[in-house]
């Protein structure tokens, strides 16, 4: 069974933040592809925009990913990889509640993920298989 990370971050409503969210979503795969490929542990990663109840604009960013094994020891990898680092910093920069400590170093990054992860335990994840990414795609 893999581990889910469900990062839910309400974002600011100003035009620049809203545009940044659109941009992040449109470019998500290309920006993180190399880092996630090389990690060898990520099954899926997806960035969605949750609309405001009014129907106009974005309320929050939802980054949804499923990976093998523990998360905490590997956050440093995602922090040190340019593509994934920029993606996470981009989300933090438009967060409605600015992260404290700021996401400028590894501790700030770890704390940002910890504070915004909706499910830390995989009790609500269905998975049809127990294979790891390495077993599926070969190592």
């Amino acid at each position, binding site marked *: 069974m893999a581990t889910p990370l469900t990062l839910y971050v309400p974002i600011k409503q100003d035009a620049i933040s809203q545009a940044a969210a659109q941009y992040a979503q449109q470019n998500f795969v290309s920006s993180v592809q190399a880092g996630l490929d090389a990690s060898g542990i990520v099954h899926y990663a997806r960035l969605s925009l949750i609309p405001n109840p009014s129907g106009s604009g974005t309320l929050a960013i939802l980054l949804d990913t499923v990976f093998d*094994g*523990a998360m905490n020891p590997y956050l*440093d990898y995602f922090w040190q990889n340019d593509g994934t680092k920029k993606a996470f910093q981009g989300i933090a920069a438009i967060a409605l509640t600015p992260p404290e400590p700021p996401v400028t170093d590894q501790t700030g990054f770890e704390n940002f993920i910890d*504070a915004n992860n909706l499910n830390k335990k995989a009790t609500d994840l269905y998975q049809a298989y127990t294979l790891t990414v*390495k*077993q599926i795609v070969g190592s």
Partner: protein
Amino acid sequence: MSSASPIPSKANLQGLIVRGYTHPYSSHLLYSFGAQAQAALFFKALCDRGIQDAQDWGAAKPRTILNLGLTYAGLSCPSVLKAGVFTAADLTAFPATFQNGPASDGSQASLADVGTSDPSQWWYQNFQTTDLHCIVHAYGLTAADLTEVVEYVAAAARAAGVTELFAARDQKSRLTQCQLPVDEIHFGYRDGISEPALQWRTAGTPGPPDQGDLNNFLIGYPEYALVGPGPTSPGPAANFAKDGCYNAFRLLYQDVAKFNTLIESQGPDKVEWTAAKLVGRWRNGSPLMLSPDEPSPATQDAEDFLYYTPAPSNPADAGNTSKCPFSAHTRVANPRDQALTTIEGKTPVRIIRRGVPYGAPLPAGAPDDGVDRGLVGLFLCGNLTSQFERISSWMNVNDFSPVFPPPRSRTYPQDALLGNRVSSSTGPSINTDFLVPLPTAAGPCPVTKLTNLPELLITRGAAYCLLPSISAIRQLAGLPPLPALLRAANADTQFGHPRKPRPLLPLENDHVATSHY
């Protein structure tokens, strides 16, 4: 990188970080700061007695020693906040792993304490893990020395209204080091041989940054650290934590009778061989990579060896597994030059080990006697998750190197000695067989298979502590900072104390207790 990289002051670091004390007597005292506690008074009493720093003591080995650590729950107690050094809000700058503690879901994804090891069972349920606020590490050269220093600490706690907690089944015994031969732990191995060199790296240090550099263990010096010890963002928490180090405290019960059955399982002539294959060192300390066929007094203290270099003499046995199996404990805990998967980085992280055995030894040949015994494990690191939890997750799932497993096998092995033998809820299926490749002249390696390895450990408790600097403890005690002279950096970059080689004992006398420090 700037050339002016500051060097920490040895007078400001707790001594435990840079040296294993080798005092034969120690006790690890657990405390809680309840509503009535006057934490400052307690810290002041400990400072008055003297918290051991990292300065060299030369020939005058101290008769007694005190060091201390504080959990996040401890730092957040009203009686500690009262010192005014930081506020509860400031403390949120500490890394989430330290804040949440080892029982949290995030940490348990790596530590995988399940069944009898489950966090709900810790400390014999005498107290909650969140009640544990402070651990005082007391050492003595003699039993009388230890009694005296422990009584001092206990009296200081009573005077300050600080509550002592007991982790033993009888709810009153302390975690006291048991008398085994020097450096020996239950299961009969010599321990404490391989430690990071703890050199302080500056702009002038030759070679690339090394995982064994002290910069990876001390908080506050991001410049040459490979693992990002935090808190890093400027503020009261970072100021307080500077020159501190984390301690992953693990109380681990060892099932000696089960271990004995395991090493006897391959036949009476293979008892020592099996013990050596499980760990990667013979029980006298000789690494299998240097002494593959039998233990040797000449290699009993050896730390300097690799798994791939020089190239294996038998190319069919890539990586010298016929000497040391991939899943042997020391090869998992520090794979040295073995290739790692991309996500693990280029070189394996290191941890500092300062643990001691507790509980009376099981007499030779005896069946289990129900006595609680094991390791008071002190695993020091600058980043709890990148160092300690990462190595722990390697032990529970051997997936950190491309050598594991053949992709189609679909199950991963575990650390032969320490694996919990349970597939974790977030990890892949695991395999409880231990493959021991055997040497051949050439061609494919035959293997001996130890099937269904037993679970040899039970986690009795765990806590993540900060070992604050001496100045930081003084602040909590309401004392003035260390004199500037002592706080000032000097030019000495050698912090680690390489282990002095033991006298070359004939093997049959190997278990004679001698102090060579």
